[in-house]
């Protein structure tokens, strides 16, 4: 591989911009002090500390478990909604209106409501994640099933494929790209939302760790946990969704 390709793979312009940001960060941190803005090096060493102490794994695992449950349920319910929208136009109207309402509801509503309903438990962040990601994943899926090519379904009728055969060989494959797109956006949202919800009512997770650091005046650790979030997002996007994309849409 020649140098040009390497430059592209490493996103060279991005690296240059990043270097500039880190330099500015260093200067500003010197100017305002570590309590307001800890320097980049101390954030990296903070990251090394929580890796060594194992704290990074326990809090990340707690957050990811809640996301997996809330987001997983959202995907399941979305699939049911999309199926309903596919078989009945009445159901489709109801689903679309319901999603429009859910879409316009603030994260904070669900956080407060889940505190009242579930008190100080894991179910708060899980429920909040579920309610926020549901409309995103479901709208994508509903759009997916309604954009199934009618001409392909007609081909299925001509060749006497039964409902199940048409569903598995025509409807599902046409919807997969929409499911992937929805899941990708939904997961990003789930991570951001669940961390906010973890500020209230639970004693583990990235959101909890971040808020605790703020309360104990450890600004450095707030930045460390923010960095952990970025790393999770990049890892899931590149590894998990990237692999799924390549596997499921290789025919393009």
């Amino acid at each position, binding site marked *: 591989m020649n140098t040009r390709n390497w430059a592209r793979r490493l996103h060279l312009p991005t690296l240059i911009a990043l270097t500039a940001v880190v330099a500015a960060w260093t200067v500003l941190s010197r100017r305002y002090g570590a309590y307001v803005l800890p320097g980049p090096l101390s954030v990296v060493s903070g990251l090394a500390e929580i890796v060594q102490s194992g704290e990074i794994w326990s809090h990340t695992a707690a957050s990811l478990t809640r996301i997996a449950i809330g987001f997983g349920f959202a995907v399941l319910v979305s699939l049911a909604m999309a199926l309903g929208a596919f078989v009945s136009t009445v159901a489709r109207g109801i689903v679309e209106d319901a999603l429009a309402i859910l879409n316009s509801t603030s994260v904070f509503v669900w956080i407060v409501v889940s505190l009242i309903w579930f008190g100080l438990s894991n179910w708060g962040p899980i429920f909040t994640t579920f309610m926020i990601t549901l409309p995103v994943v479901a709208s994508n899926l509903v759009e997916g099933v309604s954009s199934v090519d009618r*001409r392909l379904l007609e*081909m299925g009728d*001509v*060749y*006497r494929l039964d409902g199940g*055969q048409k569903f598995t*060989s025509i409807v599902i494959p046409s919807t997969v790209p929409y499911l992937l797109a929805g899941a990708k956006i939904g997961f990003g949202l789930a991570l951001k939302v669940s961390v906010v919800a973890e500020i209230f009512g639970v004693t583990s997770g990235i959101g909890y760790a971040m808020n605790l650091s703020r309360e104990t005046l450890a600004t450095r650790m707030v930045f460390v946990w923010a960095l952990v979030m970025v790393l999770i997002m990049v890892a899931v996007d590149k590894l998990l969704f990237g692999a799924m994309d390549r596997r499921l849409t290789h*025919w*393009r």
Partner: protein
Amino acid sequence: MKLAVEGVGKDFLIPVLDSVSFAAEAGEFVCLLGPNGCGKTTLLRIVGGIEPATRGRVLLDGQPVGTDRAPARRVGVVFQEDRLLPWLSLADNVALVLKPLGLDREARRARSLRYLHLTGLGGFEGYYPSRVSGGMRQRAAIARALAIEPDVLLMDEPFGALDAQNRRVMQDEVRRIWRETGRTILFVTHSIEEAVAVGTTLVMLSARPARVRELIRNDGGRERGKLVDDLTAMITEEVARQQGPGAAR
């Protein structure tokens, strides 16, 4: 009589097909000709059981064709577009339509490969539709229609999207496939040259609402150039009629 179309009519908002009747023996290659918009495709869809007729009936081996799902008779359809599933290889596209016939996996695979080979796609069975040319996709669609070993094969302007050279090649190919398989074919086209090149029986429909204007045997008894000229004159007249009085002037 393999295929009998008896007084078939269809109304949408206006009558499209008035009353169309013709019949075909087993192994005939029938071309449906007529001005654009006269209902050729609609007639084909009625014969294929995709749409119900408003009047009349279609008999296949003496059995009425309906839009219900009872697979008493088999009809293979090649559409204007290939309508292949982009996420399946060519072989899997063909094998898919064999599932309702109750064949097991291996039999489906074997038959799929046989018909892909027949249509000149041997060696391409593992390719996805997006990786092959438009002509090859249409060949795969023909292989799919033949693979169910249909009582009648319906083709709706199957080469309309192809360029002139590919079109000519595919006309020769479909003629060869017809000779090798002995299938009864109903082929819709608006190109007179195409119809004269491939068909044994030419059914010329009139302007909307359509009836059969003329049924011509294309068995070499009439000179081709003369036949093309006669048909062209007929279709010009029908087009003028369809566009209303005064439009021809």
